[in-house]
């Protein structure tokens, strides 16, 4: 600013000098007469003109100085503001400048406040963005970890999100399928799902629930395959499909979420339960039918002689016992499962027990002309067990062997002591129909009956389950089975040998 002032002083001086020199040279050029006239004029009016002139010059100089000072102040204010945007301008003696600086200061203050607010908002937004990103990742992780298949599509049925289970179910990779129409991603065999999804969106229903059956593709098969569907889609699976619409602020459907829960096992259990009820009701009604018929005949006097009356009574008794046994079986399984059964363990000899049970099965075996081959005697085969329960195990295994062995076949019961493992092994081998390899693992399941053998004999599907429960759950033993279709089966169990202390006690 100093340079400006100096320049102004120099320029003003030069202008004044130029004016004086110009005036004097004009006077010299105009001649003596006009010069004298000017001098005369100046003698009369000179002091006044000089004063006016000086006053004008001082005024101009002062105005110029003020202007330069104002410009300097404004430049300095601009520089100051440029250097520090939030800095306030110092008050000035100049009223105009002071007003201006106050106005600018006020504006600066409001801007500073506004900027502070904006900065706070930006920070809040950044935090919210981070939080929503984290929430988004968490939601994605949750959806990914769900075992049920989850698919999210937009209002145009384009894929927005799908978890691993959905990818496996529909044979697509989510990373490469985002924003693709769901109809293109789902195999033609599973298009029912796409139809339901579309229908739910169109109907704007809050939630739609439907059971869908898919023929699940074998995992070893490629996604796009030329293999026949019948070979590829071996295992039918049932899914409970729940589709919910997603609404925007205007209550318009902006997408749909589908959750597919595999209920194949539940369906199987349900089917098994239905089969069980059906079997059990049949099994219960059969002896009940005999009891009802024989008692009615007795009451109606159809038994002509005493011998026939005795025969009728005996049948009623045996059928009542049979009914009771069946009910006991059902109750025992239930009690063992709930841990409410009363167990009376004591040292017992399996050989003696088998001997007793063989007597019970003899008549059924002789009816079918089945030869029962007995074990060789064993000196010490005592186990610490509940006599009634183990008897039940032996009876169930023997009666099953007889039931599924054709007339004229053989059933062999063996006992062996494994001293190294400190256990007794009982095995019942028959020359019956055998069990298919794919069903052998399920023979001990409750209510399960071998498909091919259902016609061979009646049963509830409880006998072998009871054997397993008694041996494994109550006696810490182990059951086993080996079988070959058309050759026969071996069912058996192992129990720990009783300790000499237990025997003595």
């Amino acid at each position, binding site marked *: 600013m100093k340079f400006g002032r100096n320049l102004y002083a120099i320029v003003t001086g030069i202008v004044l000098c130029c004016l004086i020199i110009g005036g004097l040279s004009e006077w010299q050029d105009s001649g003596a007469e006009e010069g004298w006239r000017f001098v005369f004029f100046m003698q009369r009016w000179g002091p006044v003109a000089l004063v006016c002139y000086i006053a004008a010059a001082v005024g101009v100089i002062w105005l110029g100085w003020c202007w330069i000072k104002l410009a300097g102040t404004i430049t300095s204010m601009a520089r100051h503001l440029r250097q520090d945007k939030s800095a306030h301008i110092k008050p000035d003696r100049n009223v105009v400048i002071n007003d201006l600086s106050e106005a600018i200061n006020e504006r600066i203050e409001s801007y500073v406040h506004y900027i502070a607010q904006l900065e706070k908002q930006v920070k809040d937004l950044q935090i919210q963005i981070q939080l929503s990103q984290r929430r988004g990742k968490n939601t994605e992780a949750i959806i990914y970890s769900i075992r049920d298949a989850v698919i999210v599509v937009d209002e145009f049925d384009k894929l927005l999100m799908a978890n691993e289970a959905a990818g496996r179910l529909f044979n697509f990779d989510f990373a490469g399928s985002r924003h693709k129409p769901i109809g293109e991603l789902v195999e033609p065999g599973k298009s029912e799902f796409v139809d339901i999804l579309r229908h739910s969106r169109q109907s704007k229903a809050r939630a739609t629930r439907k059971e869908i059956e898919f023929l699940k593709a074998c995992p070893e098969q490629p996604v796009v395959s030329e293999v026949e569907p019948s070979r590829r889609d071996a295992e039918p699976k049932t899914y409970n499909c729940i589709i919910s619409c997603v609404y925007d602020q205007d209550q318009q459907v902006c997408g749909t979420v589908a959750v597919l829960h595999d209920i194949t096992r539940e369906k199987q259990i349900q089917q098994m339960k239905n089969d069980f009820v059906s079997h059990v009701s049949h099994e219960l009604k059969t002896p009940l039918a005999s009891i*009802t*018929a024989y008692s009615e005949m007795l009451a109606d006097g159809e038994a002509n002689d005493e011998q026939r009356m005795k025969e009728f009574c005996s049948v009623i008794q045996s059928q009542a016992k049979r009914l009771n046994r069946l009910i006991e079986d059902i109750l025992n399984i239930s009690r063992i499962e709930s841990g409410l059964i009363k167990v009376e363990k004591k040292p017992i000899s399996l050989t003696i027990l088998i001997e007793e049970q063989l007597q019970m099965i003899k008549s059924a075996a002789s009816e079918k002309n089945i030869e029962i081959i007995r074990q060789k005697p064993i000196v010490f085969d005592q186990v610490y067990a509940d006599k009634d329960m183990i008897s039940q195990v032996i009876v169930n295994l023997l009666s099953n062997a007889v039931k599924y062995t054709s007339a004229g076949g053989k059933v062999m019961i063996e006992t062996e002591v494994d001293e190294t493992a400190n256990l007794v092994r009982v095995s019942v081998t028959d020359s019956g129909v055998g069990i298919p390899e794919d069903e052998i693992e399920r023979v001990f399941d409750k209510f399960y009956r071998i498909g091919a053998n259902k016609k061979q004999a009646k049963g509830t599907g409880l006998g072998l389950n009871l054997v397993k429960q008694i041996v494994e759950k109550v006696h810490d033993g182990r059951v086993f089975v080996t079988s070959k279709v058309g050759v026969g089966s071996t069912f058996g169990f192992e129990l720990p040998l009783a300790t000499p202390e237990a025997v003595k006690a």
Partner: protein
Amino acid sequence: MTSKRVLVVDDEIHIVHIVAIKLRNNGYDVVTAGNGAEAFKIACEEKPDIIVTDYQMPLMSGLELVEKLRGSEAMRDIPVILLTARNFAIEDKQKEDLGISQCISKPFSPKELLENIEDILYQRELVGHSAELGRSLDS
């Protein structure tokens, strides 16, 4: 007058026995079988007037037996009473299609079974008589 022949089929020996006693006491000729396959063989030989069969039996069920009978020219018209411990096992349409005269749920009353047999045989006799009458009128 020759007595009517009834084939009683059930794998429950006690049921077969008691039904046979009831029917024999009431003048019927009774033949028995333990399963569907055996029953079909006996039916071919004995030509029963009516068959009383259990529904669930090993080797061949009562329903399979009826289907087989309906496929045979000679035994197509033999009336069948089905004894069943499962009330819901047979639909009405299936019963009608197979020409099952009556379904009786277990446990059953031998007296009612006898009444049913008598009714069915009487109706058939009436139908037979009217057909015979019609033929004689025509000639």
